[in-house]
């Protein structure tokens, strides 16, 4: 009697929906965070401007979609343009700071984020734009009705992350990146062009942020402040997963998104964010190196 009362009180259908929602958001977040963690791992740069690259990707997607009408072309062009922009930002602002206190790079990328955000506000105005999703079908699974597009986002993000992982593991340039992450000086001595690798890694991370911006655009409006929320979440994910640890970031992204999705059954989504803040603080207090890495000896 008691047990059935408790079981009936739990909103199972909502929990099911929120589980799927959480995984979909988690995959997008993982895509953003893996770029951020790559950049941190390779050059100790906490990229404050990452959310703005995500936001600019979404805006370029809006523009290309408006002119060509092709979602996939928009995705491709936004990724390439933002990757190039990322390379330019790295060369102009971060390369001169190489070897200085890592805190100066936070300040520099904070400056970049202010510039990009205000540029977007100036160029596109404060009204949110909408990206039309490329297909609008729904499918029914038991009594759950769910749009195909969201499933597609999760799949595509997983594919991009998987491809990125394979590239790091087996590609020649991926091995260069890993070598530079492990030991900058030794990699240089072995003939790896370290400054070029830094620029390429930043461009890669920027491109991934832009791609997730375009993919996520149809679910929320595109406006100039959308980057702020996401960069905060990506920071949390990267710290909880362990700085510079790709697998940990992905696990943390899904973990935190699920928690937030469940929390938003009972409180408003704005307040659900606090759950991930609390996870971050607990992680920093008890396992400062991240939840998903072995405890250092």
């Amino acid at each position, binding site marked *: 009697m008691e047990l059935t009362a408790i079981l009936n009180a739990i909103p199972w259908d909502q929990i099911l929906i929120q589980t799927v929602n959480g995984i979909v958001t988690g995959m997008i977040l993982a895509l953003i965070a893996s770029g951020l963690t790559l950049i941190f791992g390779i050059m100790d740069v*906490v990229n404050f401007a990452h959310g703005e690259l995500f936001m600019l990707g979404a805006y370029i997607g809006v523009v290309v979609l408006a002119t060509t009408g092709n979602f996939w072309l928009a995705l491709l062009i936004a990724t390439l343009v933002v990757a190039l922009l990322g390379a330019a930002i790295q060369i102009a602002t971060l390369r001169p700071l190489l070897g200085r206190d890592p805190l100066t790079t936070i300040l520099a990328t*904070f400056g970049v984020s202010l510039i990009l955000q205000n540029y977007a506000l100036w160029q596109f105005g404060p009204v949110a734009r909408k990206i039309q999703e490329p297909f609008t079908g729904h499918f029914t699974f038991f009594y759950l009705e769910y749009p195909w597009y969201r499933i597609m986002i999760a799949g595509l993000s997983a594919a991009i992350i998987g491809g990125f992982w394979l590239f790091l593991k087996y590609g020649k340039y991926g091995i260069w990146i890993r070598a530079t992450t492990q030991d900058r000086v030794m990699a240089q001595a072995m003939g790896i062009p370290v400054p070029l690798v830094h620029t390429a890694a930043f461009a890669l991370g920027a491109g991934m942020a832009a791609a997730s911006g375009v993919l996520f655009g149809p679910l929320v409006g595109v406006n100039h402040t959308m980057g702020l929320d996401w960069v905060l979440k990506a920071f949390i994910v990267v710290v909880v997963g362990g700085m510079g640890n790709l697998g940990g970031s992905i696990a943390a992204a899904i973990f935190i998104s699920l928690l937030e999705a469940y929390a938003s059954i009972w409180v408003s989504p704005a307040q659900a964010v606090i759950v991930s803040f609390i996870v971050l603080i607990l992680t*920093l207090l008890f396992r400062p190196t991240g939840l998903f890495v072995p405890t250092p000896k």
Partner: protein
Amino acid sequence: MTTAPLDKPMPLKRRALLSHSMVFWLGFAVVMALLIVAPLVLSEFWRRFLTEVLIWGLLAMSSDLLIGYTGMVSFGHSAFFGLGMYGAAAALLMFSPPSLWLALGFGLVASAVIALFVAYFSTRLRDIYFAITTLIFSQIFYVIIFTWTEVTGGENGLNFRRPPLAIPGLFSVPFNSETMHWFVLAVVTASYLILRRITQSPFGMVLQSIRENEPRTRAIGYPVERYKIVAVMLSGLFAGLAGVLYAIQNRFAAPDFIFFLVSGEAVIFNVMGGIGTLVGPIVGAGFFQLMRELLSRLFGDQFPYLIPLGVVFIVMIIFLPQGLLGFARRWLNR
């Protein structure tokens, strides 16, 4: 942060003529005199402008205690600033007639409590982790205040009347923009003198030693964490004081001021003016606000002034990391 080699001893002739402290206090007196006379000469607009620069300067100066002297970059000062505002708002709305001193007291207590809470957790971490944690804490308070509409007014914030400038039993006059300016100036000057005294005290020396070499400071036997907690608390207290002043000046409290971009601006003022100088951040705030005003006068209100200012900021980080007053850093701290 690297240490510059010790200054060469000054030439004997100059030392005999004017001692360092004489020059310092002479300069201090001149600047003070200019700031005291300023509201009598300036127009209403520039009077308000100068007062706000002083308030922003106080916020930046409080975070300089952490950035410049302890070597910790805080992105959470907006929380202390904002809680100071809301503390003052609470006092001004609850008690009638509104009292200036109650507002100050409430604001300071609110920001001190929050600062203790934040300091306890965030000082266990260093460098970028400290920066990120303080940022996240300020966002937590932002979300709480933004969504707790019944108490905080939510997105709209709180409006209230400005309290009179009064000493109970002695006198009570309503604030006008001149007396407001003088009051702010007095508070900021007192804060500067207190902070200067703190940074030159043995306590301040330990903070600077933490900045230069934390493991060694710990090895000597100083309880580094406790020093850091006190540093964050002191810094938060002065940031809260700036918040109270801002609330009284503008007669409202709004959640926008807890958003971390305000902390970012405080850091920008520091870097522009010169960290580790205490007066540098005020100069930085003045420089920033002046450029902003200039740009919006030249190109209109809609001009995104943060784009050119962001470029200036990045260029300064790369080529002038010591800031505008960096050349005088050692001299000002002597």
